[in-house]
């Protein structure tokens, strides 16, 4: 039974689970004929799941995702990218101008402007959490596009931002911005991205969904083993980089792409296990900010019947 499914993805290393599972035939073993569908941003991908154009995808939890879940369109069924103390995770960045003016650590964020794509995005959540932890107030600038945020940060028009390491490190390397902290210091086990699907798949297509999660889990395992635990040594890393390079930075030569891919390494949850505590915290924060309906419960968002859950 070769069942055709469409998996949504962004060209980020954090989607490596799907890439590995496809390249190494784990999906095929599960009887799934997977077509990868690439997006420019997470939000349309969530909508595409709701519309039925895409079956499974991985993305950060955002207000839009919760909203779609509330409309009965989608369910979160597993976890993917996580912060983990000790592993390079998302970086808090300061613009050069702000850095020179004294913004050298997250403690000085009070009164600063913080970039985000839009209200209810993960950037908004992280920025708020950091500010709350430091007991300061920041203003948030919605700039819609990552490109616009980078431009604004480089030219000193916003003071701070937070972003995944493979974007943060080259930026910091150019001297235009500075790393002033790690998200893992504030949200140590932050469930950054999750696996989700349409409510219909979650409820009615249990076999297919199980198959997908199993194959995805194997991909994640291979990725973690190769890139974080370095089980295969240098050769293992190189093989994995080669594989990922087919999907990420494909228009750049291997030598140029490799450091970016390696820089982007972060832990993906083994077996797509889901940190329910982090998800709950995020949902409560969205509700507290008035971004989503206050009556939404965790059950509306999550279908925990597929993967192991944990609270951390």
């Amino acid at each position: 039974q070769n069942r055709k499914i469409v998996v949504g993805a962004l060209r980020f290393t954090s989607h490596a689970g799907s890439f590995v599972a496809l390249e190494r035939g784990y999906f095929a073993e599960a009887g799934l004929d997977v077509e990868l569908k690439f997006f420019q941003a997470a939000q349309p991908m969530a909508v595409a799941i709701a519309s039925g154009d895409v079956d499974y995808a991985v993305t950060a939890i955002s207000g839009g995702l919760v909203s779609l879940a509330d409309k009965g369109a989608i369910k979160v069924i597993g976890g993917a990218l996580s912060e983990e103390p000790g592993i390079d995770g998302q970086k808090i960045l300061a613009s050069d101008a702000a850095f020179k003016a004294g913004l050298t650590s997250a403690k000085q964020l009070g009164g600063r402007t913080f970039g985000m794509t839009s209200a209810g995005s993960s950037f908004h959540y992280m920025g708020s959490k950091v500010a709350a932890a430091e007991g300061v107030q920041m203003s948030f600038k919605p700039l819609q596009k990552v490109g616009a945020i980078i431009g604004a940060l480089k030219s000193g028009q916003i003071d701070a931002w937070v972003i995944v390491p493979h974007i943060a490190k080259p930026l910091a390397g150019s001297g235009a911005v500075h790393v002033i902290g790690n998200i893992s210091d504030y949200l140590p086990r932050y469930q950054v991205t999750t696996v989700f699907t349409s409510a219909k798949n979650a409820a009615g297509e249990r076999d297919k969904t199980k198959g997908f999660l199993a194959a995805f889990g194997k991909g994640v395992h291979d990725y973690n083993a190769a890139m974080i635990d370095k089980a295969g040594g240098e050769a293992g890393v190189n093989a994995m980089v080669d594989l990922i390079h087919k999907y990420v930075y494909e228009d750049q030569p291997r030598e140029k792409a490799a450091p970016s891919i390696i820089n982007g390494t972060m832990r993906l949850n083994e077996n797509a296990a889901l940190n329910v505590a982090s998800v709950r915290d995020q949902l409560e924060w969205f509700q507290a900010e008035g971004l989503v309906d206050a009556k939404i419960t965790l059950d509306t968002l999550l279908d925990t019947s597929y993967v192991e859950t944990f609270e951390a």
Partner: protein
Amino acid sequence: MSEATAPGQAPVEVRFRGGGFAPKANRWAGAVVFALAIAFVEWGTRAGWISALTLPRPSDVLGVFVELWQSGLLFKHLAPSLSRLVVGAAIGASFGVTLGILIGLFSHVRAALVPVVAAIFPIPKIALLPLFVIWFGIDEGSKYALIAFGTFTPTVVATYGAVDNVDRSLIRMGQSFGLSWRSIVLKIVLPGAMPGILSGLRISLAIAIILLVAAEMLGAEYGIGAYILEAGALYDLERLFAGVVILSLLGVVVSSAIGQIEKRLLGWRS
């Protein structure tokens, strides 16, 4: 063709074969169509055969309006958008009219700049957003600039077209009475180009409203465009539609305002 009339025949009236081909607009019917469409969607969303994912319930959209109104948020969003619209469109339109007149009057300017304008026209303004951040900052500057840029090109094209269309015989008349170049431009070319410039402005302002959303992608906290974008990001269809309806009303208001100006300024047209 001349033939004797059959004598016994009774006279018949000439058959009517004119009329038609002169449709008239009718405000009433438009309102009825809107009401029907809204009622239809309301029914569909209530009955469930229009899914909540596809369209919001009109009554909920109305609810959002009421809320926006009561909380005062409506004006908090409307005020900055209007000021961006006014400033941006004023900058774009005044530069556009000026350049359009220069192109209309001077061969050298025309030769040099018409191709540039033609090349700029099909550039999508959203593509340039990242650049606008660097060039004009993320504050009001870039919003004004984006709207100004968007209104500029159509205004230029409309204006120089209008100048080209000024009746040449009026200009020859001016010359034949020995009017100075300045008088001809101020008293003949400009008033003669006014109808074309105003109808160009109608399009430019519609474009300015459309660009409001793009402009408010850049670090706007308040504004109708920002409101729509946030609603879109949160997939909150009620608020999305409320925002869209506001823009659409804004468009209708602006267009009828230009209609009023035309009536005032162009009363001389027969």
